[in-house]
C-alpha cells in the first residue's frame, strides 16, 4: 500500500487566497447555534423551518443538511441559520456550487443510509438538478421494486411577490408534480412550515418541498410543544407508528402528506389555493365577507399526493370553485385541480370551475409582477363570474 502526502486543502474553499482563516473568523461574528425554544412562541415561517430541521437532526443522526451557503452563512434566507454551529460541519455543510452535484450526491447518501435535506438556493437554480430529480430521485424506488428507497428532501424557495429579478421567482411546481415518484409539498402557514418539513424528512420517499419565499418572514404564534408532540423521539409522525389509540383520547395526528385543509370556512364558493396564493385567497375571502359573500378557502398544501376527498367535499358544499395559483395556468397544477374538481363534482357545480393564475409568460420583471400575480381583485372578479342567478 502506498502512502501519499496530503495535499494542502483550505478549510474554507470560499476563503480568498492569502487571507488566513483566523483573520476571517475574527472579522465575522460567530453564528449562534439554533436555540432550543419551547412552548408558545411567535415565529417566522423561516424560523419554523429552521426549528423543524434542528429537531429532526436532534432526533435522527442520519438527517443531514447541505447545499449552497447553508453552513457558515445560514442560507441566503437564513433558514439553516445556526445548524452548523449546533450540529457541526459533518451534519450541516456547504457544497461546491453545483445543483446536480448536490442532488446526485444526496441520492447516493440516501442509498448509503442517510436522510439528506438539501437546499436549492432558488427555484430556477434547481433546474441543473433536473436530470437527477427526474431520472433517479423520482424513479429509484420503482426501478428497484422498492428495494432502494430515497428518503431525501429537496427544499426549494419558490414563487414570486418579492420583487426578485429574473430566475429568482419561478413557480416550478408543475415540473415536479408531473414526475411520478415525487412527493410535492408546499406549506403556507408557520405551523405547517414546521410540521410539513418534519413530515417530509420522516417520509421514506423523496419530497420536493416548495417554500413560498414571499411568506418567509410572516409571523404567527405556535405552540412548539404541541407541534413536537406529533413526533416520536426518533422523529417519526407519532400517529403513524403508534397505530390506533384505544385510550379514549384523540388519536395522535399522523403525517400531513396527502392532506389538504380548509383554511377558512365559507358557504357560497370555494377558493382552492396553495403556497403563496393561500394568503391572497384569504384576503379575498375577507373582502368578500365585507361585501356579504361567504367564501371558503382550501389550502391544498400537499400537491402530490393530492387530497381529492377534502377538496371535492369542500367544493360540493358550496357548488362553486375558483382555483388560484401563481404559476402560468397552461398545463399547470391549477389546470389539474380544475379538471379533477370538474370530473368529480360536476353534478354539484352551479358554474364552471374557474382559474386565476399567472399569465403564460416568463415570470415578469419586478415592476411588472403586480400585473401578473393573482390579486384579490382578480379573484373576486372570478367569483363574480360564477353564474350567480339568485
Amino acid at each position, binding site marked *: *500500500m*502506498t*502512502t*501519499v*502526502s*496530503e*495535499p494542502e*486543502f483550505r478549510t474554507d*474553499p470560499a476563503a480568498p487566497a492569502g487571507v488566513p482563516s483566523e483573520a476571517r473568523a475574527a472579522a465575522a461574528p460567530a453564528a449562534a447555534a439554533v436555540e432550543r425554544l419551547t412552548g408558545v412562541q411567535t415565529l417566522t415561517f423561516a424560523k419554523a423551518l429552521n426549528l423543524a430541521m434542528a429537531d429532526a437532526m436532534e432526533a435522527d443522526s442520519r438527517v*443531514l443538511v447541505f447545499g449552497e451557503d447553508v453552513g457558515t452563512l445560514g442560507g441566503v434566507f437564513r433558514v439553516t441559520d445556526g445548524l452548523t454551529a449546533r450540529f457541526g460541519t*459533518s451534519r450541516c455543510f456547504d*457544497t*461546491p456550487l*453545483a445543483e*446536480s*452535484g448536490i*442532488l*446526485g*450526491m*444526496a*441520492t*447516493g*447518501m*440516501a*442509498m*448509503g*443510509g*442517510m436522510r*439528506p435535506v438539501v437546499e436549492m438556493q432558488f427555484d430556477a437554480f434547481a433546474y*441543473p438538478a433536473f*436530470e*437527477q430529480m427526474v*431520472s*433517479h430521485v423520482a*424513479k*429509484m*424506488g*420503482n*426501478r*428497484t*421494486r*422498492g*428495494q*432502494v*428507497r430515497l428518503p431525501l428532501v429537496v427544499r426549494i424557495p419558490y414563487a414570486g411577490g418579492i420583487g426578485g429579478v429574473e430566475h429568482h421567482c419561478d413557480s416550478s411546481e408543475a415540473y415536479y408534480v408531473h414526475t*411520478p*415518484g415525487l*412527493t410535492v409539498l408546499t406549506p403556507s402557514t408557520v405551523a405547517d412550515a414546521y410540521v410539513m418539513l418534519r413530515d417530509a424528512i420522516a417520509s*421514506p*420517499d423523496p419530497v420536493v418541498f416548495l417554500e413560498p419565499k414571499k411568506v418567509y418572514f410572516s409571523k404567527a404564534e405556535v405552540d412548539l410543544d404541541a407541534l413536537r408532540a406529533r413526533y416520536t423521539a426518533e422523529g417519526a409522525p407519532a400517529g403513524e407508528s403508534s397505530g390506533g389509540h384505544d385510550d379514549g383520547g384523540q388519536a395522535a395526528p399522523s403525517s400531513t402528506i*396527502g392532506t389538504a385543509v380548509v383554511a377558512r370556512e365559507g358557504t357560497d364558493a370555494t377558493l382552492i389555493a396553495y403556497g403563496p396564493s393561500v394568503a391572497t385567497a384569504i384576503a379575498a375571502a375577507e373582502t368578500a365577507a365585507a361585501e356579504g359573500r361567504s367564501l371558503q378557502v382550501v389550502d391544498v398544501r400537499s400537491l*402530490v*399526493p*393530492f*387530497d*381529492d*376527498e377534502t377538496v371535492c367535499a369542500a367544493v360540493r358544499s358550496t357548488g362553486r370553485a375558483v382555483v388560484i395559483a401563481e404559476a402560468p395556468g397552461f398545463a399547470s397544477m391549477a389546470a389539474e385541480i380544475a379538471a379533477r374538481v370538474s370530473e368529480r363534482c360536476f353534478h354539484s357545480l352551479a358554474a364552471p370551475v374557474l382559474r386565476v393564475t399567472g399569465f403564460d409568460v416568463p415570470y415578469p420583471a419586478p415592476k411588472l409582477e403586480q400585473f401578473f400575480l393573482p390579486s384579490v381583485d382578480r379573484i373576486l372578479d372570478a367569483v363574480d363570474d360564477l353564474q350567480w342567478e339568485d
Partner: protein
Amino acid sequence: MPQNTIPDGEALLLPSGEPIQMIDADGGAVEQGGWKEPYVRPDDARLLSGYEHLVLGRRINDQAGALVRQGRLAVYPSSHGQEACQVAAAMVLGSEDWLFPTYRDTVAVLARGVDPVAAFQMLRGSWHAGYNPMEHKVATQATPLATQLLHAVGMAHAAKLKGEDSVVLALCGDGATSEGDFHEALNFAAVYRLPVVFLIQNNEFAISVPLSQQTAAPSLAHKGIGYGMPGERVDGNDLAALLAVLGSAVDRARGGGGPSMVEAHTYRMQSHTNADDATRYRSDAEVAQWVPRDPLTRLGRHLAAAGLLDEDVEARIAAAAESVAARLRDGLNAEVEVDPQDLFAFVYTEPTPQLREQSAFLADELARSAGATIENAEGGLR
C-alpha cells in the same frame, strides 16, 4: 526524480507518461519504466482467478448477443474487448465496498456476484433493475451518462460520515467525461476527500463519435489534476496492470488519501449495441488492429508460459463459463411472468390514492377483457 518513489503534489496528480502495462500483447512481462508509482504486478494465482472471470465475461458477452438475435433480449451493449476492465473493477473491491456500473458493465456486475438472470431483466424488458442493489452492493446499471458518478460520491460520503472504511468504485466511459455530472462528481469527491475511484473505460467511441471529438485534453487521465486528484492511465486490456493500478487507487482511498481517477485504454470491439452499425463510422482495418491486443489472449499466453494454464485447465474454465451461459439461456428462455399491478406497486412506499384508483381501473379493465363480470373483479393493489 528517482524511480520507485511516490511524487508529491502536482507530480502525483498527473498520469504516468504512458499507460501502465505489465503484460504485453504476446503475454510477456513488461519491465517498469516511467511509472509514477511502484505498482506491483499481482501474483499468477490471482491472475489465473482473473482469467476465469475474463473467459466467463467473454462467454456472457457472446451469449447475450445470441439472445438478442433470438429475441430474448431487447438489446445488448457488449463489452467484448473490455472484459479486463470489467473484471478488474470487481476484483479490487471487498465485500463491503460498492460498485456503480453503467449499462455496458454487466460483466462487472456479474463478477461481483449478481445472479446473471436477475442482471439481464432490464435488457429482457421485464423490469428496470432486476437485482437488489443492497445484496451485493452493486448499484443499478445507469443509463443516463455520468449521473451514477454522483451517486457513488454520495455513497462514499455516507461511508465516511459513518466512519466506515469502505471504498466506492464508479465506472463510466470516455463519452461520459463530457457530461456535467462527470465534472461535478470529481469535484465533489476531491473537495470532500472521499474514498472513490473513478474508472473511465476509454473504448475510443461514444456510439459513433471518436475520442478526438470528445476532448482536447492530452489524455482523460490528465483531467484529474484539474480537480486535485491523482489521474493515471493504464492499458485497459491488461488485467495485471488494471489490478495493480486500481488496487493502488483503492488502497489510497481506503487509507483516507482521497479519490483517484484511472483511464483505461481499451476498445469497443463490437457495435454500440446490436441496434448500431459500426461500419458507418469506423473501418474494419481499425478494428483489426485491436484483435492482437485482446485481453484474454494475452493473459492466457502469460499464464500458459507460467505453467498455470494448459488444455485441461482451459477446458475446465470453459466448461464453468458454459454452465453459467446455459443458466442464463435457460433463465431467459423461460417465459417471463409480469404482473400488471406492478405498474403501481413501487412508485411510492405507499401507493397514493390516485394510484390506487388507477390500479383498480386497470384491474377492472383486465377482468372485463377476460370475460369476467365487474362484480367478480377483485380490484387493484393488495
